[in-house]
Structure formats: structure tokens, C-alpha cells
């Protein structure tokens, strides 16, 4: 163990190494580490923020879905109501129409019936006159016997009515 000027040389070397490490090695390395730490912290914060936003978006979506469901239900209910109304309306209209048709046909039938009766009566009168003329071999003046023929026709009509 001999101490000599090597000591001074080594102190110089050590001093230079310390200076270099102090000025050029330590700062960029610690800066890189600290910057990365900051970056990671920011990333974690952003992830947390994203999570929170996602949760609130979920809540909002739920609210919107609920509102849409309510509205859809309302629309369906309205449609149901309207359907019943339309069916009722159609039914009453149909019933009125049916009644009107039945009435008018009944009227028509009555008219037809009275017209047919009149015709028949006329035919019976002329037949009765023709029959009687044949029987008597001579002309009968329908005017002179109008009362008689009329009575006969009424009797026949009465018989027809009784049988009809």
C-alpha cells in the first residue's frame, strides 16, 4: 500500500466522472423516467375518465330507451282505441245501410203487389165479361153492367185475398 501521485490522478479522474455524470447522464435519464411516469398517470386518468363517461352514457341510453318504450306503448294504445272506434263506426254504418235497403225493398214489394192486384182485377173483370158474353151468346154492354162486374171482381179479389 504505497500512496503516491496516483492518488491525485485518481481524484482528478473521479472528479471528471462525477461532473460528467452530474451534467450529462443524470438529467436526461431522470427526465425520461419522470416524463414517462407523468404519461402513465395521464393515461390512467384518461382511462378512468373514459369509464365514467361510458357509465353516464349507459345511463343516458337507458333513459332514452325508456322514453321510446313509453311512446311506443302510447302509440299502440292509441291505435287500439282508434281500431275499436273504426269498427264501431263501420258497424253502425252497415246497420243503417242494411235497414235502409230492407225498407226500400219492402216499399218496392208493396208497390209491386198493389200494381199486380190492380192488373189482376182488370184481367178478372175482362175475363168475367168475356165469359158472360159467351154464355149469353151476345154482347154485353160493360157499362150497363158495370156495377155487377165490379161486384164480381171484388168477390174474386176477396177469394184471392182469402187464399193469397
Amino acid at each position, binding site marked *: 500500500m504505497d500512496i503516491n501521485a496516483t492518488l491525485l*490522478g485518481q481524484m482528478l479522474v473521479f472528479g471528471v466522472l*462525477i461532473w460528467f*455524470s452530474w451534467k450529462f*447522464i443524470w438529467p436526461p435519464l431522470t427526465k425520461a423516467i419522470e416524463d414517462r411516469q407523468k404519461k402513465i398517470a395521464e393515461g390512467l386518468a384518461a382511462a378512468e375518465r373514459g369509464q365514467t363517461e361510458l357509465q353516464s352514457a349507459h345511463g343516458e341510453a337507458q333513459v332514452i330507451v325508456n322514453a321510446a318504450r313509453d311512446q311506443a306503448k302510447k302509440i299502440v294504445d292509441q291505435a287500439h282505441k282508434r281500431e275499436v272506434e273504426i269498427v264501431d263506426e263501420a258497424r253502425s254504418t252497415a246497420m243503417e245501410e242494411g235497414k235502409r235497403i230492407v225498407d226500400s225493398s219492402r216499399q218496392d214489394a208493396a208497390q209491386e203487389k198493389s200494381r199486380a192486384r190492380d192488373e189482376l182485377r182488370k184481367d178478372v173483370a175482362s175475363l168475367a165479361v168475356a165469359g158472360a158474353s159467351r154464355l149469353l151468346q151476345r154482347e154485353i154492354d160493360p157499362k150497363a153492367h158495370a156495377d155487377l162486374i165490379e161486384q164480381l171482381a171484388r168477390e174474386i179479389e176477396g177469394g184471392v185475398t182469402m187464399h193469397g
Partner: protein
Amino acid sequence: MSAAEHATAGPANSTEYITHHLTHLRVGEGFWSFHVDTIFMSVLLGVVTLGLFYSAGRKATVGVPGKWQAFVEMVVEFIDTTVKEVFHLDRSFLAPLALTIFVWVFLMNAMDLLPLDLPGKVAALFGIHYWRAVPTADANTTFAMSLTVLLVVLFYSFKAKGAGGYVHELFTAPFGSNPVLWIPNFVLNLVELLSKPVSLAMRLFGNMYAGELVFMLIALLGAGVFTLTFGSAFGFFGQVAMGAVWAIFHILIITLQAFIFMMLTVVYSAMATEHH
């Protein structure tokens, strides 16, 4: 078997072998002489490490780091955490100082793990006959470092307490401010102050010097292997087995000594900033 064989005269016996291995490549006379091997190895290791660390620092990205950058950052963070736990003031100087000490001392110590005769053989290729590869096994290196650390400690003492405050403390602590106690206080503080560099330097030097010596003794076990006797074969296996065990154990020692030197530097600096 050894570099010594390439010297002007090969080692005649174990004593000569060991003496040869403990001789520095020396330039100059008396005090004004330099151990060229010590200075060369320490400068080489310092430049290589700082160069590698510097390149890592220059290319450091904030994004995903490369393997080398990750390793360097791991070392930096380890040192920074260690310093932060002990030293509570601004550590923008002390932390890089601790990094320098740890890495440099570790690598200088690690030269002990090179095959004992390899540096000498390489040096012999250049016609150099003496070459000690472990700079920390030279007391000049360890004292140079510990005295520099003493300067740093004094700097922190003055910085934290001011010149007047520090001188006042030197004379009044730990016994009290009675004028009768000034001399005992000062003597005690002086002893305490000087014991720091001495213990720092001697601890590292002693460990590395002894480690080197043990490697030499183990190497001598196999010295007679070419005589091809039973004893020489036994000695050879002894060299291999014990050399391996001692080298593995030494990995722990070199790391531990580097850490202790760094840690005590930080602790002394922290003590210097505390008021009594």
C-alpha cells in the same frame, strides 16, 4: 501458467509469483510516481460505463424503453430511491455522485473476476511486465475517492450550516459550548471527520486486496499441474473448485462493497446537513 512467465524472468516460486502480481506498472520516482495500470483501468472503465449510460440518456424515449434503457433506468431509479430515503435536501448532485460511485466501483471491483493472469498476458503482448487489473485494490484509488467524498461532505456541511455555523459546531458539539470543552470537542470532531475517508478507503481497499490475494493463492494450487503427479492433479481440481466458489462469493462482495461505498457517501452527506 502465469503472465509472470513472460516477464524477464519467470517466477521461481510462489513468493515471486505473488510479489510479481502485486507490483504496479510504475512511472516516476518517490511520491511523484504514477501507477499506470491503475489509472488506465479506472479511466477505461469510467469512460466505457459513462459512455454507455450517456448513450442511454441521449436516446432515452418517454415511450416504451429498449432493454438497455430499461436497465439503466432501473439502476438510476434504484440509486435515486436509495438517496431519497436518506438525504432529504436537493439531490440533483448527490444522486449522480452516488450513481458514479456505485457503477464505477462495481466495475473496477469486477476486474477481480477476470482470470488472474489474463490482464498480465494481454499486457505482455505490448511488452509490459507488470499489470494489476483491479484499480480498487490500489489504495490510491480508494483514498482518492474517499477524500473526494470528504470534500463533498465538507461542502454539504458548509452549505447547510454556513461557515460560521459549521466552525461553531466543530467547537461546541457534542459536549457543549463551555470554553473548557472547545478543545475536546474539536479533537473529537476532527477524529470523526477524518475517520470517515479512512474507513471508507480502507474497507474497499482491504476487501479487494484480500480478494485478489486469495485468488492468487488459489491459482497457486494448480501451479504444478504439468508435473503430472497425483498431488498436482489434486491441486488442480482444488484450484478449479475453490476458484469457482471464491469467484461466485466474490460477485456478492464486489457488489456489496460498491453499494457500501455509495451508501456511506450518502449517509455522511446526510449527516453533514443535520444540525446538532
